[in-house]
């Protein structure tokens, strides 16, 4: 059985041209990683160190400059691969004229969720992210935290096998963070694979079974739960790893 997600020596270089001058920036460099089905894998790294690039490569929104990426053994961006993926981008926004219910119906139908049972599924997801009371308000009136909950709802709606979460607890209050953590663990127990990036080390520590640390686009360390428990916690390892480069 192929892994849920695999990166084989993937390098992504961004080329930007301005006034005839072309500059190259490394997004990720020689990234090799496998995320097994049913795993919760966390990506840690400072801003601009390749976390979002990694996720976009898995979605086919970016193409690798070299190396290969596979999602359940398939080309990222292919209809088969995208059909099994849910994605929460960092700080997403939504059509302000739609209510959460309308937004979710729109995304669900684009994901191929059958119309029969759709309303029930939307109710269930709205309840699970705590938005049931705001279901009839337009997204234009939402706070940052509510938008983040709606983002989670759209990523989970079609019950994808692999969920990519870019900063899933960003903008949430402590109670919501707790609820989201519980929700993600429930989803994982139900069989979904999670790849998440976060600046909240304590959440990553509590959610993930393995963690990768990206420094300047390179995956410099991959740790499993026993590793960070034995070495004084994930925060210490993270700081010791990124400090020389920061």
């Amino acid at each position, binding site marked *: 059985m192929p892994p849920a997600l695999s990166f084989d020596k993937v390098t992504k270089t961004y080329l930007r041209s301005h006034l005839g001058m072309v500059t190259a920036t490394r997004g990720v460099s020689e990234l090799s990683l496998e995320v097994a089905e049913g795993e919760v894998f966390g990506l840690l790294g400072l801003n601009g160190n390749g976390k979002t690039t990694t996720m*976009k490569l898995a*979605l086919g*929104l*970016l*193409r690798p400059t070299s190396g290969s990426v596979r999602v359940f053994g398939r080309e990222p961006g292919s*209809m*088969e691969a*995208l*059909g099994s*993926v*849910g*994605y929460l*981008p960092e*700080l*997403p*926004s*939504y*059509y302000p*004229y739609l209510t959460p219910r309308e937004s979710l119906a*729109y*995304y669900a*139908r*684009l*994901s*191929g969720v059958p119309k029969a049972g759709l309303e029930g599924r939307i109710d269930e997801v709205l309840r699970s992210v705590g938005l049931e009371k705001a279901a009839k308000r337009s997204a234009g009136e939402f706070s940052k935290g509510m938008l983040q909950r709606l983002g989670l709802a*759209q990523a989970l709606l*079609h019950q994808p096998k692999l969920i990519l979460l870019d900063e899933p607890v960003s903008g949430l209050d402590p109670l919501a963070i707790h609820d989201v953590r519980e929700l993600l663990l429930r989803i994982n127990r139900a069989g979904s694979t999670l790849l998440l990036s976060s600046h909240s080390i304590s959440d990553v520590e509590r959610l993930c079974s393995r963690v990768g640390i990206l420094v300047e686009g390179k995956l410099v360390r991959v740790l499993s739960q026993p590793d960070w428990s034995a070495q004084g916690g994930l925060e210490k390892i993270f700081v010791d790893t990124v400090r020389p480069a920061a």
Partner: protein
Amino acid sequence: MSALGILCANAWREQVRGRFFSVTLIFGGLMLYMSVLLGMLASDQEVRVLLDFGLSFIDVLAAAAVTFAAATGLVREMETKTLYLILSRPVPRSVYLLGRYLGLLLSALTAVLAMAVVHVSILLFKGWHWEAGYLLALAGVGLKLAVTAAVATLLTMISTSVLSALCLTGISWMLGHFVFEIRFMATQALAGASAKALYVMAYVVPNLQLFNFRDRLGIPDATGGGVSFLFALSYCLVYSAACLGGAWGIFRRREF
């Protein structure tokens, strides 16, 4: 409903609920009122003036609305990341582009229809007798919008900013009304780069003069409307398909 229909319906809803659509309709109402005032100045030709100015205003405003929507829509979807939420689903990029295009076109046609209802009401009030040619003139406006929206979609893909996409579409729209004149100038120009450039321009910019059925209105013995319309329809389909094909060629390789 297929993904195409869903995307089309959402693009239509986005436009119709947007501020720019309301402003277009208000402005359209004002312009139609202006044409009533202009009609008063030409007392013996009042209905003719009302017809011409009214249809021209509808044409220009709808073209402005569809150009603005096409040029800004995609950029806004990228900036707000709503595009990521669509392209991370099993929706082919060609379907996204086509759905968005059809939605924009539908919203512009909705605006045309709303303004036309007001226009016809004013005309009937002023003693105009209904002519089926009016529908042909409106259909011409619709075909022109289809081409303009396709050009705007392509230029949005090529341009580096919303402003340049708007300007380029505006220029091509204006040149499109002078294609026969450009061809004539090309035949008159001396041989060399300028003649070649004029020839290229004459065949690259959309020939929007083909869609003018307004001038037939009020001419009782005008013939060949059906044939001209079929030719205009075929031209519209081929030209729009070429523009959308080009836009898709760029869009499918684009990274986000």
